[in-house]
């Protein structure tokens, strides 16, 4: 869905998520003093968007998400899900939530955990097991589905947490650090999963410290610091790159560069700089692993390859 389409849908539908003037104070021990975790935050997330909430530790991201889920009472302000105050638990029918560093009951197996959440969300018996199996396969946990969650690694916990969030096929996904503790392969898979949800028209609000990942998958971002909104908008706008293009050229002789610059200038373009195309370690890592799985050998020459 493009931004223009999102704009059209806004006219017909309320925003998927709306936060108006959210302020949250926590009392300090003793009760006389209070610390302000979120200060007058306002946000709108349109249906179908992937929205990133960025900020250092203690910037108020998790408090914002908890207020959005009705787990905290705002000191001031309101939160809405599809136009309905989020303090109403009925709005939770549309939500899938993955908490930060998810802990799940250790005594349940992965399959039992998904079954519990599916039942709680009222998924009809017909199709419930099929949905669980599909999700287990999608997050790569089918071989470990009958193991107790207490034996799962951090990455496996994140993946079962993501499956748990998706089990009722929610319209809105709220993901708090979905890739924390996940290896690069898992993080890449989770990013792909989020983009799949976006392609299905789902709205995703996520917090993450992995800026590269946010950049790859988010339509809009908000940056919080000490509870205040520092910047907000579409990534292209914030990074000022909407009018810029990158060309990756191989084997262009040094002497031809001036001619190329001239050629561009004649067509109204400007060459802002020439630098070696950076090889991203994460891409190389993923490519090397993929090759190893196919029985091929990665060579250092692959480092310089431009990868999508």
């Amino acid at each position, binding site marked *: 869905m493009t931004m223009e389409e999102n704009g059209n849908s806004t006219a017909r539908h309320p925003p998927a998520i709306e936060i108006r003037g959210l302020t949250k104070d926590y009392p300090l021990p003793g009760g006389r003093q209070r610390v302000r975790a979120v200060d007058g935050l306002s946000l709108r997330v349109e249906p179908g968007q992937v929205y990133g909430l960025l900020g250092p530790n203690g910037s108020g991201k998790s408090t914002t998400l908890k207020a959005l*889920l009705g787990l905290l009472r705002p000191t001031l302000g309101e939160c809405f899900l*599809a136009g309905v105050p989020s303090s109403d*638990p009925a709005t*939770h*029918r549309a939500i899938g*939530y993955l*908490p930060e560093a998810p802990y799940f009951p250790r005594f349940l197996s992965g399959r039992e955990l998904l079954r*519990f959440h599916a039942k*709680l969300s*009222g998924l009809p018996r017909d199709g419930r097991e099929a949905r669980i199996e599909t999700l287990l396969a999608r997050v790569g946990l089918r071989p470990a589905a009958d193991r107790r969650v207490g034996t799962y690694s951090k990455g496996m916990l994140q993946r079962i947490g993501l499956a748990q969030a998706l089990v009722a096929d929610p319209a809105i996904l709220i993901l708090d650090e979905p890739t924390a503790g996940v290896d690069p392969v898992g993080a890449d898979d989770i990013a792909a999963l989020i983009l799949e949800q976006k392609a299905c028209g789902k709205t995703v609000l996520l917090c993450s410290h992995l800026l590269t990942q946010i950049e790859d998958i988010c339509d809009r971002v908000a940056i919080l610091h000490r509870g205040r909104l520092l910047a907000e908008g579409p990534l292209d706008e914030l990074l000022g790159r909407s009018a810029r293009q990158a060309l990756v050229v191989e084997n262009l002789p040094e002497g031809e560069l001036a001619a190329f610059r001239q050629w561009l200038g004649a067509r109204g373009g400007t060459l802002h700089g020439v630098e070696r195309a950076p090889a991203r370690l994460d891409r190389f890592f993923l490519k090397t692993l993929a090759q190893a799985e196919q029985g091929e050998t990665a060579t250092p020459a692959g480092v310089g390859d431009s990868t999508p």
Partner: protein
Amino acid sequence: MNAASRDPLRFSFRRVGVLAEHAFREAVRQRVFQFTTLLAALLVAGSLGLRELDFGGAELRFVADFGHGALVLFGSVLTIVTTVQLLGGELESRTVLPVLARPVRRSEFICGKFLGVWAVVLVFCAVVTVLLLGALWLRVQSLPPPLPDAPRAQAVVAPYAGVLVVGALQAVKFGLLAAIVLLVGSYSQSTLFAQASSFLVLGICHLQYLARDAWQTGHGWLERLGGGLIGLVFPNFQLFGGEYLIAGSGGPEPLLVARVAFYGLAYTTMFLALAVWSFRRREI
């Protein structure tokens, strides 16, 4: 969000059932359930080992009292530890977050936890009571038969009905205790505090006759008022004990048993309502 999502979320017994099943499964897989049940069973079985004391009918009463002691002690520990684990432990470990992010009312959450704990306690009481009945039956078989010319009053009668009634009333009492612990856990910030407070309340409920004495025979108005308040707020757990219920030769008095059960259920409802009220106000 579709139109259905805008419908108000009404209290659902189905969701309470799902939460109760989940709580029950968690509790029975915890070591505390297995450990307390095993210890209580060993204690009941151990009462059979006291064979040197051949008191006839009095010995059977001794075996029954010994079994009830195991039921009361380990049942109380099981109820408090399990309830604190299921509520306070879940709040501390934050496993509650994805559950409350579901379309679940907080009242359903508390009721589900309560029913799950109560189901665990019912299983515990049933296991210990059945073992106790078995122990009594075995002891009756090993006692020498009464002399042919012995008066009827001296015949050995095992208190089977009394054991059953006390087992059932203890289950009601543990349900009430679980509701009190849920109330404590709904506002406490740590499982340690919740457990310590719950054991303190358990002590107050067992010594509640002291407060009633202070209410009725206290010297100053403050003593009488304090005793009266404690006597009113805290239930009297001694009412659920076996002595006066099974003392009569005719077995338990049905009307008395029904009144005690009603007393327990009424207090349970009150504490559960308070727990729901407190938990709804809590920030997670």
